[in-house]
């Protein structure tokens, strides 16, 4: 059987075989102590995004702190690449010994801003590239997408059905992303168990309802067991008639002071119209306490429109439109060399190829504020004195954790606080707004100089 499951100890092999081959060349050429600095950033925002939400850092940090090749991995390397004993010894003892600076998770970021900078011995720095790119991409894609949805939903609470994602791990990532950006209902028993969260009481299903001779019998049975929790589907057969049955049964049970499901759910047809009718009829029959959940293939554009049309929703629950982020399912996260440190001396490096330029030097991002609102970001050199909040913070120093990793709830609080400091037009889902990001004069100067040096050294120009 093809085993698709990936466990944490497998991750050192989530890399390219070439990185091990090149590592052995560095080692044999006596270059293993050469340090390098890499920037992790995105060159362009996707067309449908005004901002991105940085996410995935926690996993990267744990991966780096626990980095170690297993016995099986070492024997695979030996067998596959035939490395000499000295190289094998190096790989056996390999741990991450570098420095990581990063934006805190939940930070908003923009094109060309490093979200992480990593300084490490060159062999380590290359081996970790793929996992870091993968992590930053998938977490950021999903957090950014769900962020748009939650903001568009406004006062209405949000939930997520995680079933249709690109794999179960992607489902899990979308659930964590949802929490970070404030979606309320995002759980799955397997995660609740693992993370000791409240169990997901969940709803009923069309199949459950269909298994009874009548809708009413199904509802009466469900009500008997639901202990005043859970939700009821109205449109197994006909939503309008399903609502009548619910109201009849629920009012009767309420009178008798018995339990009934506190939520009703529509998942097909004209959701706005149905929710309005339901709200009116529920209120009229003294069922004001029953909340309405609308579930369908919702996304930020649909909930915005539904809010404008006056949908009477207490909850919007979305699915694959969020968990696969179809309007921006990928992000070209890159990992680019910005300096090589030889004998303690940094040599700035950059890429010059067409459309793929990167900036040299050890960088910092400065976020400037004006009248209480963020006005622009400056990408400069770490050594520069530029006003504004420094976004890149030390996370790992010489392989040791130097940062208190926040919980998803703390990340969410930070995200909400930060978000309010940006102008609200940044969060428009249909208008393109571009937040200002500038390169500092010092960095611009270093870029010019590095370009010239590279041309001179390599091409005698």
């Amino acid at each position: 059987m093809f085993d698709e499951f990936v466990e944490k100890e497998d991750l050192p092999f989530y890399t390219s075989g070439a990185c091990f081959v090149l590592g052995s060349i560095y080692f044999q050429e006596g270059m293993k102590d050469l340090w390098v600095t890499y920037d992790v950033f995105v060159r362009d925002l996707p067309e449908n995004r005004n901002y991105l939400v940085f996410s995935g850092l926690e996993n990267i940090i744990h991966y780096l702190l626990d980095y170690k090749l297993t016995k099986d991995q070492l024997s695979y390397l030996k067998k596959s690449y035939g490395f000499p004993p000295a190289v094998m010894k190096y790989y056996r003892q390999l741990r991450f010994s570098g420095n990581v600076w990063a934006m805190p998770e939940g930070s908003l970021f923009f094109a060309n801003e490093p979200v992480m900078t990593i300084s490490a011995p060159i062999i380590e720095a290359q081996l970790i590239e793929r996992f870091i790119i993968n992590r930053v991409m998938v977490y950021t894609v999903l957090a950014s997408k769900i962020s748009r949805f939650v903001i568009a939903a406004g006062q209405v609470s949000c939930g997520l059905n995680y079933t249709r994602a690109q794999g179960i791990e992607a489902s899990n990532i979308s659930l964590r992303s949802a929490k970070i950006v404030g979606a309320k209902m995002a759980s799955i028993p397997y995660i609740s168990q693992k993370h000791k969260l409240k169990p997901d009481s969940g709803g009923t299903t069309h199949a459950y309802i269909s298994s009874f001779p009548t809708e009413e019998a199904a509802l009466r049975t469900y009500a008997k067991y639901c202990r005043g929790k859970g939700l009821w589907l109205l449109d197994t057969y006909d939503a309008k008639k399903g609502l009548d049955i619910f109201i009849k049964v629920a009012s009767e049970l309420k009178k008798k002071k018995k339990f009934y499901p506190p939520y009703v759910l529509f998942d097909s047809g004209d959701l706005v119209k149905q929710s309005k009718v339901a709200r009116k009829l529920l209120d009229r029959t003294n069922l004001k306490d029953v909340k309405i959940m609308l579930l369908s293939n919702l996304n930020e554009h649909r909930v915005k429109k539904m809010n404008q049309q006056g949908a009477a929703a207490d909850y919007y629950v979305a699915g694959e439109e969020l968990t696969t982020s179809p309007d921006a399912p990928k992000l070209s996260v890159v990992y680019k060399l910005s300096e090589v440190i030889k004998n303690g001396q940094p040599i700035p490096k950059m890429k010059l190829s067409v459309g793929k330029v990167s900036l040299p030097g050890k960088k910092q991002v400065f976020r400037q504020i004006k009248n209480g609102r963020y006005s622009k970001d400056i990408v400069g050199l770490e050594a520069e004195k530029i006003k504004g909040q420094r976004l890149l913070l030390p996370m790992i120093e010489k392989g040791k954790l130097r940062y208190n990793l926040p919980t998803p709830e703390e990340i969410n609080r930070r995200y909400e606080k930060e978000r309010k400091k940006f102008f609200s037009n940044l969060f428009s889902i249909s208008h393109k707004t571009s937040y200002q990001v500038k390169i500092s004069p010092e960095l611009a100067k270093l870029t010019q100089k590095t370009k010239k040096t590279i041309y001179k050294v390599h091409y005698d120009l």
Partner: protein
Amino acid sequence: MFNEFITQEELSLFTSGGFIATGGMMVSEGMQNLWGTHDIFVREMPACRNYLVFAGLEPVVDYLLNLKFDQAQLEYLKKGYNFSDEVMEYYRNFRFTGDLYAMPEGSLFFPYQPVMRICAPLIEAQIIERYVLNAVMAYSVLTTKMSRFVHSVKPGITTGVNFIRAHGPQASAIALRAAKSVGVDLAAMPIFGLRNNLEVEKGAVTHSFISSFATEEQALRVFSKYCRGRGLWLLDTYDSMKGLAIFIKVAKELKKQKKPFPNMIQFDSGDLVKQSKIARKKLDQAGLKEVKIILISNLDEYKITKMYKQGMIADVVVGGEELTTSPDAPKLGFVSKLSEMIDGSAVIPKMKLSEGKLSYPGKKQVFRQTKDGKYFRDIVGLDEEKISGKKLLMPIIKKGKLVCKLPALQKINQHYQAECKKFSPALFAVNQRVKYSSEISPALKSLAQKTKLAIAKAHYEL
């Protein structure tokens, strides 16, 4: 720490709490022997697809055969849902005891065709739904995308995929399996090589490797020393045309000295077509005909088609996130719908009537019909119907036991290749929409009519 990794054992709780809760109610109400048949299908073809490739059966089968709740999961259920002893006893003995019929992996399929038909006790059928849908969607989305990519590349050209930018490492694994099942040539990563005994990835050089040397030439000389005549060289770390000149100079010299040099060169930025043409010409002139050209970038079937029109010369083409995330169709609305209920000896056809979410009742089969050696039409009918054509749904699991031998990846690829050849080539056009005919049999249509009336009558006394 938030742990997103999941093991096979944990999958039994990859479900909705609602399913577990309603399962408990059904046990308490004595309904655990009520069986149901569910069809897994998609209602619509994504706008930019002519066909879909079914994949993900193997992981689903593996999951079903191993499904059970372990001690820790049972304790969680007890604590979280406060089930009675009777319900807990039911979950302790919980296994998949149903039947699974499915299309073989690598089969092409179309909307409203069940790719799987699962007949099982309703409680089981509900609990497995989430994982089944997740697996079938993720595998089929990525396999279909990889299939389009391979079809866009002319025969004789090597294809490759870089798996980094996927929706997590597990999605990378799914993409890698997808690539192999439709015949991508270069699909390897050490993590999956080790776990699944696949080929070793030989790999290339990186821009960082080149940058870490004082000059490009020096980096190339060191790399040549170790490459044993394999491996590939990047030309565009600084300037691709100057990089090409350096490569030719060093490779010619090493060739004369009968020393190894990298046998492939790669462009990954700028105008790939133009650069590939110049490189081929200059390499040939310098007596380096054996050096192969790799084009790697954010390639997909659309770009490949366009690059052919512009006269690209490549020996190898390699794609990345455009294939591993399938941005033009990153999702598929796979659904699991109840088509009949079995209560003892009574079989009651079921269907969904809600707006835009229609499903068909009854135990179904898909019949694929051939005319002049080519497939020309599918009929979705009832299993017991006598319709000409190949039956696509095959028995995989019966009463919880595997009744067939699941094919290895190479076998899946062979099946896929053989099937593709039987469809009209027009179906594989990258840019043209072609609709393959898939019809509902008259008997199924009339059962749907009858079921609709019966439901309306039973529930609303019309």
